[in-house]
């Protein structure tokens, strides 16, 4: 016959079960709305600058520079919001959202190198928009419902960039990384606290 478990252990076990259930059921709400608006604004500037570049290499460098700036703004505002709403980034839904968002970004980086090497510059806008959108669809499964919707919009713009004329590429990037970020960022900021 097994001895009954002490009261203390059972209480701890119950508290652990509640915490784990809440973590599994919860959504990652630290998506920074105003941060996305700022990223959208810098993307519009980048699109204007990129359109004036004389070579594809300089066009690529402009957008890569924008990616670094966007990463900085997005990362900093996300950490700030996570602290403000007490939403941990490294555990629970935050961790799952991050891990789901990451693979499409890594693939995007690798494809950028591969496509640039063979001079397929015109494929880059569609590839970036599609994979960025995929990241929001997969990561957004653990976040508020508007995030995967935003991902689908990015993917639609990406498909248009891949299948449409090459001249559309830079402007679809402006509409996607600029316009979509600003529109969805404003909605997220208003509905989900910043």
């Amino acid at each position, binding site marked *: 016959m097994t001895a009954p478990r002490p009261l203390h252990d059972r209480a701890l076990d119950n*508290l652990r079960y*509640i915490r784990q259930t809440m973590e599994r059921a919860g959504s990652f709400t630290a998506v920074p709305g105003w941060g996305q608006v700022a990223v959208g604004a810098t993307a519009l500037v980048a699109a204007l600058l990129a359109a004036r570049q004389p070579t594809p290499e300089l066009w690529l460098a402009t957008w890569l520079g924008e990616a670094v700036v966007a990463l900085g703004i997005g990362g900093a505002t996300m950490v700030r919001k996570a602290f403000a709403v007490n939403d941990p980034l490294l555990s629970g839904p935050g961790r799952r959202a991050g891990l789901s968002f990451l693979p499409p970004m890594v693939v995007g980086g690798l494809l950028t190198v591969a496509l640039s090497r063979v001079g397929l510059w015109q494929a880059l806008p569609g590839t970036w928009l599609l994979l960025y959108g995929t990241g929001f669809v997969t990561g957004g499964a653990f976040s508020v419902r508007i995030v995967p919707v935003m991902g689908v919009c990015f993917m639609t713009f990406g498909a248009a960039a891949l299948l449409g004329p090459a001249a559309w590429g830079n402007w679809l990037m402006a509409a996607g990384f600029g316009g979509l970020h600003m529109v969805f960022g404003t909605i997220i900021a208003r509905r989900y606290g910043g």
Partner: protein
Amino acid sequence: MARQGVARKTEAVERDVARARASAGPRTAELDRLIHERVRLGIVSALAVNDSLSFNELKALLKTTDGNLSVHARKLEEASYVTCTKSFAGRIPKTEYRLTGAGRRALEHYLDHMEALIRVTRQG
């Protein structure tokens, strides 16, 4: 001596539980039993961090069967801890659950209760 220590610890636990019950109101004994069951505790905990969850979302989250979830959700509904809304998404029936104020308070009291037990047993 040891027996006196155990008696003191038991009295302290009873005092904490009585305090938790007193703050929760007259129905706490029933509330404790209702919420203490694992599936029901899971339903209430999951709804505490969501505006609403569908039957299928709860089923997947708690890894339980239709019948089991249905029985436990109904008990919580009868106690007014959750509300249940049935609708149609196209032709597919959809059942959505929400936590009520009474359900949220019951979860808070349950958490207080567990913490009180841990505190008292640690002091001993």
